[in-house]
């Protein structure tokens, strides 16, 4: 039952059907169905504990969902069932790559090394499982040069080139977020899942993030799925928004529709602490 909302024009890249994830008696995700249209930005929002990160963990193979399916329409490999793939194959085969809410960089390694590690599978194949690499064969050298080029290219596009040789752990928070995105981009994702990319960014930085996200969709033809609390990001860049509460989808639609959705308003006014602040930003008090 694909959604045919305003964003349903394109064929969905990812279809989530009746996804359920239970931890004991708690249903962190409860019968969730949604589509992620190709070459669009889709946002998943909801108060703390709504099951957003669990949803990401199910998509990317870190959790095995209790029930339901996640189907990816891969342009070369056809339909892939993500829920049955191990996490590393979600990235390497299906090319669905994620970032983390609490940044997970290889902190002692330099930024450039981080981006080269992201190209591990390509390089490892080129190094013939280290044999060609140990002998320094030209085929491996060329592959390594290409990998460095790609890394340098993304660093340049994200304005990180001057940080290339700095250990990633020593960078400011906002820069680390950008490095993590650059690293994910080096995997050549079809679908990039960003878990709270604007968390901890100042208003100027989150403005830059908006531009970056829009540029990625336009220039690199990526599909983005993001979890975000910062409404200045969500409302400005998303084509499509899905609202979760207690693991259930309570609304879905364009930013405009979400702003005026009585279900969302009711749900969030019912919340006491998280809901209040959420409501104020949702209605545009801070934009």
């Amino acid at each position: 039952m694909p959604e045919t909302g305003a964003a349903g024009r394109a064929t969905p890249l990812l279809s989530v059907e009746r996804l359920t994830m239970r931890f004991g008696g708690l249903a962190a995700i409860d019968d969730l169905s949604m589509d992620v249209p190709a070459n669009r930005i889709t946002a998943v929002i909801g108060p703390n504990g709504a099951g957003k990160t669990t949803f990401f963990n199910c998509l990317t193979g870190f959790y095995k969902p209790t029930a339901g399916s996640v189907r990816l329409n891969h342009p070369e490999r056809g339909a892939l069932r993500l829920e049955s793939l191990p996490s590393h194959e979600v990235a390497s085969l299906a090319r669905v790559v994620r970032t983390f809410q609490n940044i997970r960089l290889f902190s002692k390694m330099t930024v450039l090394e981080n981006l080269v590690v992201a190209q591990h599978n390509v390089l490892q194949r080129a190094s013939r499982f280290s044999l060609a690499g140990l002998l320094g064969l030209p085929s491996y050298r060329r592959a390594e040069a290409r990998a460095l080029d790609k890394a340098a290219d993304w660093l340049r596009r994200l304005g990180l080139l001057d940080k290339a040789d700095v250990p990633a752990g020593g960078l400011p928070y906002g820069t680390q977020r950008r490095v993590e995105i650059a690293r994910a981009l080096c995997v050549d994702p079809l679908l990039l899942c960003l878990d709270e990319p604007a968390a901890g960014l100042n208003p100027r930085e989150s403005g830059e993030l908006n531009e970056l996200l829009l540029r990625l969709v336009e220039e690199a033809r990526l599909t983005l799925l993001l979890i975000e609390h910062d409404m200045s990001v969500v409302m400005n860049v998303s084509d499509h928004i899905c609202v979760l509460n207690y693991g259930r989808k309570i609304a879905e639609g364009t930013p405009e529709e979400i702003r005026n959705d009585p279900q969302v308003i009711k749900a969030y006014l019912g919340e006491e602490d998280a809901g209040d602040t959420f409501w104020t930003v949702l209605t545009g008090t801070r934009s």
Partner: protein
Amino acid sequence: MPPFVAAGDAPTWAERGRDAAGIALIALLLGIPMIGLTTVDQGGALRVLTRWPLLAAFVAAVFCGRLLLRHALDLLKRRRRGRPGAAAEDEESGRRGVRMIGWAGWLAFGAALVLPLVFSDNRYVVDTATTVLIYVMLGWGLNVVVGLAGLLDLGHAAFYAVGAYAYALLSTQFGWGFWAALPVAGLVAAVFGLALGWPCLRLRGDYLAIVTLGFGEIVRVALVNWTDFSGGPNGISSIPRPSFFGLPFAPSGDAPTFAASFGLEFSPMHRIIFLYYVILALSLLTNALVSRLRRLPAGRAWEAMREDEIACRALGMNVTNVKLSAFALGAMLGGLAGVFFAARQGFISPESFTFNESAIILSIVVLGGMGSQLGVVLASLVLVLIPEIGRDFSEYRMLLFGAAMILIMVWRPGGILSRREPTLRHAAAEGGHA
């Protein structure tokens, strides 16, 4: 309570005096029973005598010592703080450090090459140097697992034992030569590495340490009890010594010997020196392999896994392969060192592969600085030479050893050489393609 001076601005002499007096008071309290009173045996009965002058001298020495120490520390701190632009200098000094490490490496290499020629009639020196090199090789093997891949392995001596027993059995039971058995024993050890790695795939940190510790003990206990296979606690003796590519090191006999073929007078030192060069070659090969691998995708994957395993998975890396390859390579290098050990000793028994051995190898890696190749060399030197030098101190030997380890860890908490050198540089990337 004695007013200890907080580490702030330079204290006045009065403050320093109060601080030293406080310490002296503690010394006095401790010193009354330990120095002030002493027992003497007088006609079969014990009598307590007092030594107040000695105690007074002790307390005075502590007082003055504390004053001097404080003064020296303050001077050091002031000098360190006085240096302008310390942060900006850091990068430059770091680069200089890397260059110096490079030079030190080549210097150590040169010294290692000429050492047996200089000390060609001193068996003790060459033997000790050979021991150092065995530990260097073991350290480099474990460095792959602990330093690069970040998997805490407390059972490395097991692989050392597997290599040693593999060679001992192949040579005594099947008549294999040293060079033929070397790669096979290495492979056997690698298989044991995989056997250890497989059940450990989901473990990290403390849990992994416990399992590897258990593995090391299993191998040792099996060797002790499986008498038919390994000779049990008696070990395996008369393991053939390596020959010089077919020429034995022996006084002239029927077959051509090394000394006769080269027109030299027979000397038992020939074999000692040859063994030294064999282990030098083996460890240089190890070093070349590990430092090269570190710059390849496989090595970077190990380091990335050490930093964050979950991020590795999210980037599409098969962490299972990364882990198993680290275990297998580390085990293989440990096994090769074991083969050499068996060939050098001519006799092995499970006693050589106790937990103590694993602990020393791990200390070498941690003390040297995780992941640093030259650090392993320095730490092996320290850990082998201190007990040797300490022989004059007889029963205080291990005390000295412990004190030295504590001092190193206080002085350099990250190990002797803790600076990590990047495997890639952006400047190289710009120049690397045309």
